[in-house]
């Protein structure tokens, strides 16, 4: 079921198993037996709990106050209401919180919980090479609220990883948050001198990257297959919900009678062979793969006509389930590609992309952009506007005061003055700012790191810039240059980017030092503090697969993001308009 987790260079099943064991231990305790049959699972919501014939009810929650109110409501209604009495338990993920428990106490329900514990599930395996903390507000907390608790959890998660996969001998990092996490890891290690474990290290290097170092990349529209699915439909916990029309079963004679109305829900991960092959390709290269696959599959089905002997027929039949799975997978992805194509071929998508690419290649970043103005005038979604304005600001090392004021005024007048709060948040996070000192560093950074490539090959890429059809994600470029030739070659640019860069070494006992085999790749864990996009992941996978790359990457992050979800997390939550 979770075979895809062990498919990569590092077997993440071990982490998953450890997580499962911990959960089982908790369940053992609640149920007082070795059975873990979960009768029903409910999404947390206010009101009465749905009926279920169970003794134990476990609340599995993030430590957030608003969730405590819901739990209180649930418990009070349950206790007031019908018998039989239930046993309540609460399991905080990843940590218990004083505030939450105090809150429950004030509501008078704390005593109702028999077990209150925490499930330190910091890093959740998403795929064979991908771990996420699913902490969507990490960036906001670090940069708007000066709350670095999520970094503390990140450090904890890294300690867990090291306990399972050995001490990571080299730590590199760039950015303030990266520095904090490295410091905490070192301190945690020092405080427990016995923590030296005897596991042969799986990871050679840890690279901690603060999202703050590369604010640009998430703002641009991702152009890989998976990236576009996320941009357009939003991937949540590896699932995507799609409009059902294109997935209607094609049967003749039904005349479109039973058109499905529920959104089509699909899981997306490397367990699906076809998806693993196309997810990281530039969308323009997906069509040809799909049509090639279609030919192979229909050829395979044609085989049946050639099957003459019983033996041949038997062999054909034995392959059928696999072929049918391949066919339905192909059908699904053809439908998704069609849906995406409808959007990528639209005029507005093209215009938007043109402006993004102009900004990223350094064209006209210092004046008010006509397209953005038009979008405001036509009241396009505010997040779209903010993404573009922030992109322009980042590509110009801040906007000229006059330009910034102009955008602000237009946005506030069109979308409402209360958005001044959101604009302020974006300024605080450094996404939107006035240019100070009149210096624009971006061109130097762009040229030195080769962030813009004019001759991009989308079909058979030779550089990571294919993931944005020209723009090479800064964060991944940093990872690439670290592996070869090393950061010393880009000292000057590193100094222009915010926050310190550093290197730390963790001593290994002599017996555990690695003797690398000839031609064996190094393994680097890249931890994105503040979120990572699917396109960046694709770029790192591309580097892993490069023939003479020499490094394979495992990716960890606080949250999988795209420009929209990221900006949304920074927006002030406004009360919905009363109409």
């Amino acid at each position, binding site marked *: 079921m979770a075979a895809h987790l062990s498919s990569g260079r590092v077997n993440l099943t071990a982490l998953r198993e450890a997580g499962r064991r911990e959960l089982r231990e908790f369940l053992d305790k609640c149920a007082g037996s070795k059975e873990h049959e979960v009768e029903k699972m409910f999404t947390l919501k206010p009101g009465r709990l749905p009926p279920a014939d169970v003794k134990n009810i476990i609340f599995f929650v993030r430590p957030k106050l608003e969730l405590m109110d819901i739990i209180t409501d649930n418990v009070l209604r349950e206790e007031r209401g019908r018998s039989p009495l239930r046993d309540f338990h609460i399991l905080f993920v990843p*940590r218990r*919180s004083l*505030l939450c428990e105090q809150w429950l106490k004030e509501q008078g329900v704390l005593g109702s919980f028999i077990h209150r514990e925490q499930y330190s599930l910091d890093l959740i395996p998403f795929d064979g090479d991908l771990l996420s903390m699913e902490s969507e507000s990490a960036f906001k907390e670090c940069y708007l609220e*000066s709350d670095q608790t999520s*970094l503390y959890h990140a450090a904890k998660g890294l300690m867990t990883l090291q306990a399972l996969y050995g001490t990571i001998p080299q730590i590199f990092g760039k950015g303030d948050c990266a520095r904090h996490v490295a410091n905490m890891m070192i301190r945690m290690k020092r405080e427990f001198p016995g923590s*030296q474990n005897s596991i042969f290290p799986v990871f050679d290097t840890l690279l901690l990257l603060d999202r703050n170092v590369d604010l640009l990349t998430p703002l641009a529209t991702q152009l890989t297959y998976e990236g576009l699915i996320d941009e357009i439909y939003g991937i949540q916990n590896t699932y995507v919900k799609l409009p059902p029309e294109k997935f209607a079963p094609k049967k003749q004679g039904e005349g479109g009678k039973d058109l499905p109305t529920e959104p089509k829900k699909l899981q997306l991960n490397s367990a699906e062979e076809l998806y693993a092959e196309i997810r990281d390709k530039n969308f323009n290269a997906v069509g040809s793969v799909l049509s090639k696959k279609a030919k192979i599959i229909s050829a395979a089905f044609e085989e049946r006509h050639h099957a003459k002997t019983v033996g041949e027929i038997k062999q054909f039949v034995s392959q059928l389930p696999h072929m049918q799975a391949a066919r339905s997978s192909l059908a699904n992805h053809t439908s998704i590609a069609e849906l995406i194509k409808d959007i990528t071929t639209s005029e507005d998508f093209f215009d938007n992309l043109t402006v993004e690419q102009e900004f990223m290649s350094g064209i006209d970043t210092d004046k008010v952009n006509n397209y953005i103005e038009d979008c405001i005038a036509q009241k396009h979604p505010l997040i779209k506007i903010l993404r573009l304005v922030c992109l322009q600001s980042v590509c110009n090392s801040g906007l000229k005061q006059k330009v910034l004021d102009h955008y602000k005024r237009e946005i506030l007048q069109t979308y409402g003055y209360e958005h001044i709060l959101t604009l302020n948040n974006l300024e605080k996070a450094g996404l939107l700012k006035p240019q100070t000192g009149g210096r624009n560093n971006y061109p130097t950074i762009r040229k030195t790191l080769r962030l813009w490539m004019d001759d991009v090959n989308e079909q058979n890429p030779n550089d990571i810039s294919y993931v944005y059809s020209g723009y090479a994600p800064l964060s991944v470029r940093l990872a690439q240059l670290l592996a070869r030739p090393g950061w010393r070659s880009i000292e000057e640019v590193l100094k222009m980017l915010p926050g310190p860069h550093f290197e730390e070494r963790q001593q290994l006992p002599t017996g555990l030092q690695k003797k690398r085999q000839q031609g064996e790749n190094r393994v680097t864990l890249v931890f994105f503090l503040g979120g990572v996009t699917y396109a960046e992941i694709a770029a790192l996978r591309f580097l892993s697969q490069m023939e003479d790359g020499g490094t394979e990457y495992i990716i960890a992050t606080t949250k999988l993001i795209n420009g929209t979800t990221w900006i949304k997390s920074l927006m002030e939550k406004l009360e919905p308009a009363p109409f």
Partner: protein
Amino acid sequence: MSRVRADEEEYWHSSKFRAFTFDDEDDELSQLKESKRAVNSLRDIVDDDDDELERVSWSGEPVGSISWSIKETASGSTGSLDGRDSSLQKGSSSYAALPKPASSYSLSSLFKGRNKLSSFQSLSDALTDTGVKNYAPELRRPRAEYKDYSSDWSPKDTVRRMQRGKVCSLERFRSLQEKLVLLDEAVAGHDGNVITAVLIFLKRTLRREILFRELEVRQVALCHLIHFLRETGEQKFLLDLLRLLFPLSLQLSQYREHLNIQDVEKRREFLKGCIGLPFSAEDTSHIQDHYTLLERQIIIEANDRHLEMAGQSELFRKYPRKASILNMPLVTTLFYSCFYHYTEAEGMFSSPTNLKKTFKIPDKQFVLTALAARAKLRAWGDVDALLTTKNWLGYTKKKAPIGFHRVVEILQRNNAPVQVLQEYVRLVEDVETRLNLATKYKCHDVVIETYRDLKDRIQLTAYKCKVERGSAEEEKINSILSNMVRNAYS
């Protein structure tokens, strides 16, 4: 639980001390793997040294176990953070800093007995008395947890213990100096849970002025406190804090409060109060505008609701309002006013020109909005007037600050007739755009004239099949074509 701890509470209420403890109600041992239990159960027998235990657990249990880390953070730093408000303490049992081992011990023994009957799994469970707390979590506190109180921990150790979710009494830190070191240590640890806990302690034990003064130079801690106050809804304390400390972003935090005020009159009053706050010059002007806008909207709303109810205005009868105008953005308000109040004199609050002047709305924005509103009403005359300028000699000229292609788009979206549409298509300057728009919206005359001016016979001939046979347009094409031929030969 308060029932059981009555004796403790009594003690603390009668004493001049107030308790503040981070105690661990849950036995972390219970979370360890069974194999580990035997070892750890020594803890209850042998006098446990915490650090030593810690070393064992961090040191690498067999591969595949993360229980060491579980234990590490485990059993969460929980407990009574009493003192959000002294009134809370009553019912909610402020834990004693120095509980009475004897009483809780005997109580837990009681439960132990019961437990044994019901659900003891194994001997090892019994040894570690895990089960006990399962059934009496509020009552029992492991003996081991109390012994540390006498020991004299540095702020650093205390913070580390709290990060690990251990029992900690903060009461021991009495001097301001010590408290501040404690706070700085907590901040350096980056664990929000602990920072908040220390802040709650300081908030309760320091005078406000002193707390505020110290927070001013500790921005991280300040942010945590603000966040805490906002989450727990301690508005008054929060406002006091904001009033004293004036970083710009905090002013906005006060402004944000208006979103929670439903009543428009009160909201307006509140916004008025915000204007005086020391925002940046630029923000001040936006907030001033916000206030002025809401003030206008209240007047317009009262007036128009009355008009609509009276039913005497034809406009309101024909196009009933879909929603009230209150709290709408400025541009929406302008649209509304262009729709319902277009002809009003500038002196009226609801007139478009008045809005334009008051809020310094740029020409482009104004024309765009007015155009959309008038086109929706199909008031083509107004559209024409809006785009016509007169120079001082009295000559008129068509002018569109937004570009005529945009004018065409807007009119087309409102189903303008071809006659109206083509007048503006004709004015689109860029030939290619003009041809595109004209072809798209079937403004045949414009297409034909443009090809004529371009002297493009081929396209013109090709276009013949797009117009109706025998129509005036076909006639026109034919005559132009023959003219072109004649000119070519002459």
